């Protein structure tokens, strides 16, 4: 059989070809227009293909060409600041080729193959190199050095190495066995890139969001799931993470979501400054946008494209964060393809392999020793959009079984305009034990204890609230009323955070700690004042407390917070004498 066949059947994005030799996951070109597709099933002579572009107008009998390659991404200098569709075609190039509407049959290089980069060699002639070893540096953006690595499968002795200006397809290094290396390499998206070993995570991914960093921290190299109904702020949370988390590189996958939201990100990111480096955020970002109305098969591929790019940067020794918004759309793409294949469905029509695919995807997260011995990590944060907000559905459950951090968004909180609408009672993180040492060493010795006190107060509040619902708050003893007041302060002053506010959107981790301490100081001062006869009403209404709370929206809060707390405790102490 040859590598050319003909179309037998077309049903939406699924095309069947006959007369072609094919292997699973071979990339094929379908029809006269050469639409890109991938072999996903073989039946005797017939190969079933999922096509990444719209298939209307295609007829049986048109040619199909097998490229004999698997779906791969191009990796090399030029990736950063790019915005791709699900199969790594740059959207700006598509606009140039086909105008504002995405038509089909257009091929585009992942990045400019002609662009000249300055290659600085890091090895010399005669050096032994192994797969994954860094052979040279390219300053890709102001903040990021792109490390050129030996492809994972190659190794040998360096016969020659260049230095100076090259484009990504020119050979920069030759090994004794004749292997030529360019700055660009390819990697199949469905195969995880190799590494030496996985480490246990011990450093938090600091996000600048108080509820996340303080109560439910995520480790670099960890995986988190954010399930939530619509309107609860999944996308805003994901975008905040992309903006402010202290990862060195960010891969943002807009998977089956709104077009206008991607546009917002595209408009906003070039103007935003990374609080950790002071450089534009775009310089550390790769974006993948496959909106809900773009072809469904490309949506299925988009998360793999994204995570392969993330792993590539991890192999250079970087900490990479990957946001996938939303993994439910990816699962639905699998469901749609599966139903076109007439596969026997599992739960809710999803294919039976859904949970294993989800697990495989999240398992590509991790902190690793790279092939060259560096320390790198990929942190994966996946949004989940459960129908009706009910997380007993298969995608949420498949995700929760594998991730260690669960940030549960709550429609009720969103309705109260409590943002981020993360429910502090049912969310969890399994990382505190492994991260506590870091917090003790870098923030404060008593950081874990302060966290326990804060979350304990919230827990007590929820129990008290049940009583209040029945009898009203006035029926409680004053010390419990004070606890309610302190918990309200935690919620309104600490947990609520305005993701759109210039100052409040990002909260330094040191400041987070001091704000938490301020709340505890209030509690202590109020308790001792009330023990000495002060009235609850006077204590909670001291003006300096609302000043303290309002001031968090001002710049330089970290410089004044301690003195404001002193003023507040003094005023509270004064309420004793008034009586």
């Amino acid at each position: 059989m040859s590598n050319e066949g003909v179309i037998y059947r077309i049903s939406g994005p699924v095309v069947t070809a006959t007369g072609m030799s094919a292997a699973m996951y071979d990339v094929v070109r379908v029809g006269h227009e050469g639409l890109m597709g991938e072999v996903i099933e073989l039946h005797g002579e017939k190969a079933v293909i999922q096509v990444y572009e719209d298939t209307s107008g295609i007829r049986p009998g048109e040619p199909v060409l097998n490229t004999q390659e698997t779906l791969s991404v191009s990796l090399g200098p030029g990736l950063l600041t790019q915005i791709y569709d699900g199969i790594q075609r740059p959207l700006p190039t598509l606009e140039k080729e086909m105008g504002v509407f995405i038509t089909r049959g257009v091929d585009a290089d992942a990045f400019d193959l002609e662009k000249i980069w300055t290659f600085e060699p890091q090895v010399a002639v005669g050096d032994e190199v192994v797969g994954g070893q860094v052979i040279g540096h390219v300053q890709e953006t102001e903040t990021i050095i792109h490390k050129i690595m030996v492809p994972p499968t190659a190794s040998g002795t360096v016969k020659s190495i260049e230095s100076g200006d090259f484009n990504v397809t020119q050979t920069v290094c030759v090994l004794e066995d004749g292997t030529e290396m360019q700055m660009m390499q390819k990697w199949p998206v469905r195969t995880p890139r190799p590494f030496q070993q996985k480490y246990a995570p011990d450093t938090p991914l600091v996000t600048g969001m108080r509820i996340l960093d303080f109560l439910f921290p995520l480790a670099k190299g960890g995986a988190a799931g954010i399930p939530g109904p619509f309107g609860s702020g999944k996308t805003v949370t994901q975008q905040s993470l992309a903006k402010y988390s202290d990862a060195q590189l960010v891969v943002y996958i807009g998977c089956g979501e709104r077009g206008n939201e991607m546009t917002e990100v595209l408009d906003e990111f070039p103007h935003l400054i990374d609080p950790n480096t002071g450089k534009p955020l775009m310089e550390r970002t790769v974006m993948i946008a496959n909106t809900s109305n773009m072809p469904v098969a490309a949506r299925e591929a988009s998360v793999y494209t994204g995570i392969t790019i993330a792993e590539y940067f991890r192999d250079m020794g970087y900490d990479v964060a990957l946001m996938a918004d939303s993994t439910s759309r990816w699962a639905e793409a699998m469901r749609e393809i599966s139903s076109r294949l007439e596969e026997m469905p599992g739960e809710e029509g999803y294919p039976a392999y859904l949970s294993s695919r989800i697990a495989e995807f999240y398992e590509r997260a991790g902190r690793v020793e790279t092939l060259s011995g560096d320390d790198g990590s990929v942190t994966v944060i996946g949004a989940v959009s459960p129908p009706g907000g009910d997380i007993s559905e298969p995608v949420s459950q498949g995700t929760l079984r594998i991730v260690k951090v669960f940030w549960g968004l709550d429609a009720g909180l969103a309705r109260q305009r409590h943002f981020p609408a993360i429910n502090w009672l049912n969310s969890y993180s399994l990382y505190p034990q492994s991260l506590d040492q870091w917090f003790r060493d870098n923030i404060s010795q008593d950081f874990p204890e302060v966290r326990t006190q804060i979350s304990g107060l919230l827990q007590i509040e929820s129990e008290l609230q049940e009583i209040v619902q029945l009898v009203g708050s006035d029926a409680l003893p004053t010390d419990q009323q004070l606890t309610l007041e302190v918990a309200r302060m935690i919620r309104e002053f600490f947990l609520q955070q305005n993701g759109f506010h210039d100052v409040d959107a990002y909260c330094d981790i040191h400041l987070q700690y001091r704000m938490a301490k301020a709340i505890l100081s209030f509690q202590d001062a109020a308790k001792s004042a009330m023990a000495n006869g002060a009235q609850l009403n006077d204590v909670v209404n001291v003006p300096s407390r609302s000043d303290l709370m309002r001031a968090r929206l001002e710049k330089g809060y970290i410089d004044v917070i301690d003195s404001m707390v002193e003023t507040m405790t003094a005023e509270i102490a004064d309420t004793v004498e008034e009586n």
Partner: protein
Amino acid sequence: MTGKEYRTITDVKGPLVFLNKTEPVAFGEIVTLRLSNGTIKNGQVLDTSDDLVIVQVFEGTSKIDREAGVTFMGDVFKLPVSTDLVGRILDGAGRPRDGGPEIVADEKADIIGAAINPYSRQSPNDFIQTGVSAIDLCTSLVRGQKLPIFSASGLPHNDIALQIARQAKLKDSDEEFIVVFCAMGITAEEYNFFRSDLERTGALENAVLFVNLADDPAVERIITPRLALTAAEYLAFEKDYHVLVIYTDMTNYCDALRQIGAAREEVPGRRGYPGYMYTDLAMLYERAGIVKGKKGSITQFPILTMPGDDITHPIPDLSGYITEGQIVISRELHQQGIYPPINVLPSLSRLMGSCIGEKTTREDHKSVSDQMYAAYAQGRELRGLVAIVGEDALNERDKQLLDFSGVFEDKFLRQTRDEDRSIEETLDLCWTLMSSIDTKYLVRLEQTWIDKYHPDNKA
């Protein structure tokens, strides 16, 4: 291939016709069927292979037998478009319904439409003043947005949609919208209501109507919104108009989708709706927006009725995940006699942040909106508590908030069907109403705005 007539029908099932042994037929190709009694029906290819072709018939399959002749037209479904469309009433398949002449086409546009490249979109940020306080303050509409109305049977969603269509304008501008109205399976009565209102206000001259009524073929509903959006895209992106697309009722559309899925024996998703319904709805909703280098825009107002008032039903649920917010109509408020009965608490406009503030509406808009919302939400919550413990158990703050929730509904929400409040009037009204609450409880208002706008300070 056009012109060759096949008489090879093997099966007819629901809206689908199966036939074998044809020349290669394109996926999505348009088909005409000639019945033995001379009737012509139209359809579209859903599945094609060397052996078997599945055709979905728009007008229903009644009277189709195995003798019917099937002709493949060699092309996918296209709508003839030109500016002549404006002022016309067409049926659900794009044929004149008003007795007027056929549309003379400037060009023929593929009705499936192509996805807008996200890179080529322009962020919507022009505030549209609807004159309805609840919407303008709490769920501000932006040009290029898709903002559905989540309603239920027996609620006045049509009045609200029409009021918006009548009053919507850019602030400080007379620029009008072209209304593209798309009816899917609504009753003749509802349709007459829409039409006569558009006629009464003269808006019909600036509108295009695509009408598929309840007794028209259900399958036709699959293409009706696509025709409407194709017309909208042409008017917006070729002819520079600002287009407001109102479609009603999305629930009927989804039911038609389910009907076809069932006939094809597809594996159903939740409540029997097809697993690809999310993608299918996205192909409609995502056709809203503004693109770089084009002057026009498409703003969408889909109306859907939630079966059993259930917002977690797949239709509102999937819609909510695609659209940029939602306006929720409340039966409770309606029964209290409040019009428009918009429940602002579950309502949301995702694009609001980009269109309000000093430059577009007023500097205090965001704070006022947050405060009004928060106070109302707390007041509503207290009603539940009062029912158990009585009003006397409330403290001063709670009492004020409880009273405010009533005022909010009576004075802020309530307005007449032709009352067109400017955003300044709305904001001033908010300040007046909020003055019933002690300032120290209004924690979401910045001091600057209190100094500037609070009635106590203004006087």
